[in-house]
């Protein structure tokens, strides 16, 4: 599938808002469509390469989950994103679609406290299990003390 084909097919996906960063396609979908779009991207568009998944804390404008995937043959890159609702910290997991999401979602849970529904083993990834809080949230100050270290 060529770059142009991929763009045309994405435009037909229901509820998808399409934009761009440089040469990459940016697709914004509702949370309910998050895993559905990932499945569509992998199986139909051929975006089989999973680069990364992360989140952004937009403070009063809620959390946003982003993932970057590639079509390795045509070199087309897709940034998919979804905005969670007010106070919502759950999001469908992409692990059933991309196995690479397993560690990425664990890290995201660790740093932002986002619970991924359907993740097989959602534990903290980088921080110890007894850590309090989620450091990449904007409400978490850089100098938050962590006993016994200050």
């Amino acid at each position: 599938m060529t770059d142009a084909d991929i763009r045309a097919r994405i435009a037909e996906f229901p509820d998808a808002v399409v934009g761009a960063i440089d040469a990459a396609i940016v697709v914004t979908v509702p949370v309910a469509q998050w895993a559905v779009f990932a499945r569509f991207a992998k199986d139909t568009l051929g975006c089989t390469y999973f680069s990364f998944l992360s989140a952004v804390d937009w403070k009063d404008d809620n959390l946003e989950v982003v993932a970057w995937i590639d079509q390795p043959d045509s070199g087309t890159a897709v940034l998919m994103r979804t905005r969670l609702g007010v106070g919502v910290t759950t999001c469908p997991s992409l692990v059933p679609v991309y196995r690479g999401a397993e560690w990425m979602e664990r890290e995201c849970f660790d740093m932002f406290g986002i619970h991924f529904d359907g993740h097989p083993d959602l534990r903290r990834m980088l921080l110890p299990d007894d850590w309090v809080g989620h450091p990449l949230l904007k409400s978490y100050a850089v100098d938050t003390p962590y006993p016994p270290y200050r």
Partner: protein
Amino acid sequence: MSAPSPMPADLNPRLVKTLDYTGSERLTMNMGPQHPSAHGVFRAILTLEGEQVVAVDAVIGYLHRCHEKLAETLTYAQYPSIASKTDYVAAMTSELAYVMAAERLAKIEVPKRAEYLRVAVAELQRVASHCLWLGTWCMDMGGALGGGATVFLYCIRERELVLDLFESLTGARLLYGFHQVGGVRYDVPEGWAAECRKTIDLIESRILEYEAMLEDNTFFRMRTEGVGVISRELALDVGIGGPLLRASGVAFDLRRAQPYSSYQDFDFNVPVETAGDCFARYQVRMVEFRESIKIVRQILDGLPEGPISSRPGLKSVAQVRVPKGEMYARVEGPRGEVGCYLIGDGGAKPYRMKWRGASFSNLAVLPHIIPGHSVADVVAIMGSVDPVFGEVDR
């Protein structure tokens, strides 16, 4: 807090100790966090049936410094020298990813001479990094390879020559601060190009020696062929990168797929192997040595004259003006895709930075491929993945 695991209880290393003894003993063994083959601090909780690994739980984070939070507190001019501390054996490419993200977001032009120098140091860095990989990997596999440390010392000898080049260029041997937004910080000193040619000629001849030493060695072949096979489908799915991906039959190299800096100006091959085992990963890296040297030669032959930075030297830390917006810049590091997802809010510091470390994704493949191998093979597989824990834990 955790969701219930669908992994069968007898395969979940956290639950193994609650199993009834059924006659065939299962053993839980900690490999790490301090283990010579870990190349850093990495703990693998292995579940063993005799010598065979049946499950692995990887524990990382011992070197976590929260680079991403730190990036929100430092300006675009300050952070590049911190970025080099993610993948500290390939600092040149880590810095480049961050600097490129800021430049593209702010639409800052980079002079051609600077772009050529960036590629030159990135490729020299790949040579240095692969030297370290080959040496440590062969040392991990130990006595089978002519007394353990032999290949290691040879490789370190060659790596030192590249570090000498970097030292005369930047004044530093490991963490350079060479790249800056808008270009590079140092121009090549007099006589550097000649020294560089001498070094890469020497290394190219030494690569032949390594190959002769290793590829005719039955033990080396036995320990690497058919060991740790990563299928094409798994490789893409997990998102491993660099030599690992290309050893599994995927011809995906960012230098070719989405050329950045000045890679479109140079002629080089992208090696691809299809076996997906440790030996295929070795073969890919050995060709990459030569291709990197080839690129460096082309740069030395055609280095354009001109300025090395489109911006004046950095006197004030808050000089770079980056508008509101987002950008993902990625480079092909020695270990694969090193990416920087940067969100600017119009201020002097980024609103958010996500660092995509190549080793993090590469390491995530281990739980999928290790079960079924013996403990000795785990060491060979880990070495072939070439993880750098500064980049895994960030």
